[in-house]
């Protein structure tokens, strides 16, 4: 099971990367980034999976037996942080695109080549 999930994560990362590298529309490129980030998050969560164990919340599970009953909580904590960071970056990118669009009235990535060499 975890193999399928982690493969999905990698596949999403590749898909996102393909979007980033080949799409011409800036909004689509940002979508590529969100897909890429989602892939990373899935990979991270599956890293913390322990076969046959439950979520790391000690309501039914007693603290004394927690170590043998829960999945790894650390990647989940990290993913939370990663999601928030991803959100920040995406928001910033969107605002950039908003401004870029006003600058040239275009969303085509190739219309922004003023700086070179």
């Amino acid at each position, binding site marked *: 099971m975890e193999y399928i999930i982690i493969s999905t994560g990698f596949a999403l990362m590749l898909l996102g990367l393909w979007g980033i590298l080949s799409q011409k529309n800036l909004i689509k490129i940002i979508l590529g980034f969100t897909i890429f980030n989602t892939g990373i998050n899935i990979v991270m969560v599956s890293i913390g999976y322990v076969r046959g164990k439950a979520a790391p919340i000690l309501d039914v599970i007693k603290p004394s037996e927690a170590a043998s009953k829960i999945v790894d909580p650390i990647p989940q904590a990290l993913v939370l942080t990663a999601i928030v960071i991803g959100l920040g970056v995406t*928001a910033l990118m969107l605002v950039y695109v908003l401004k870029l669009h*006003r600058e040239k009235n275009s969303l085509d990535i190739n219309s922004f080549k003023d700086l070179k060499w």
Partner: protein
Amino acid sequence: MIKKILIIGVLAVVGLIFFDLFNAYQGNESLSKTANYYAENGASQVGAANLVTAIVVTYRGLDTLGEVTILFLTAAIISFILKFREEDFMPNRSVRVTSELLDSAAQVIVPVIFMVGVYIFMNGHLTPGGGFQGGAVIASGVLLMIMANPNFGVSHKVIAVVESISGIAFVLIGVLGIVLAGGFLDNTLLPLGKLGDLFSAGVIPVIYTFVGLKVGAELSNIIGTISHVQNEKN
């Protein structure tokens, strides 16, 4: 064309890297040593039923402070980027009339959304959830309000005050940890209480409340700023 092939070639090798990673991944039969420590000691040291929360807010509290900072930064950057030159560019956008349905539904649902948000961050140490999730839910309520009424202005003053006060409170709690307890962001400022109670887990609920408010305010701020800019007319 050459570029397409290049991209495909590059991605193929990236796929190869992922394949390496996939091969290295064998799943887990048991917890890592750090996770094991948290599982064994989390309840007694931090007192939060939700171990993820214990990690996020206490063990890795500095990360969370960084996270909050990122949202704060993004909100600040967006508001200063969009503010300047707003006199130069004004999109000719007429505001769409909202449907009656959305308008009425929003009035009913938004308070509920806010309540759910508050519930999520208040119970962050007990249930799956926490400040970020709760804050995001609150912000979604704000988003709904804007959708329902495009001319709805988010009050920057209120948001700024909420944002600042909760941010300062977070930092202050951290500093109090150095003064009164074992270090920056030490959880044992307040009694740990009984595992599973609402008032337990030391300062986690307090911090998560501030985080929730802050995140909610920041996300609302971002949404508000963007919508505000789009509402401007010639």
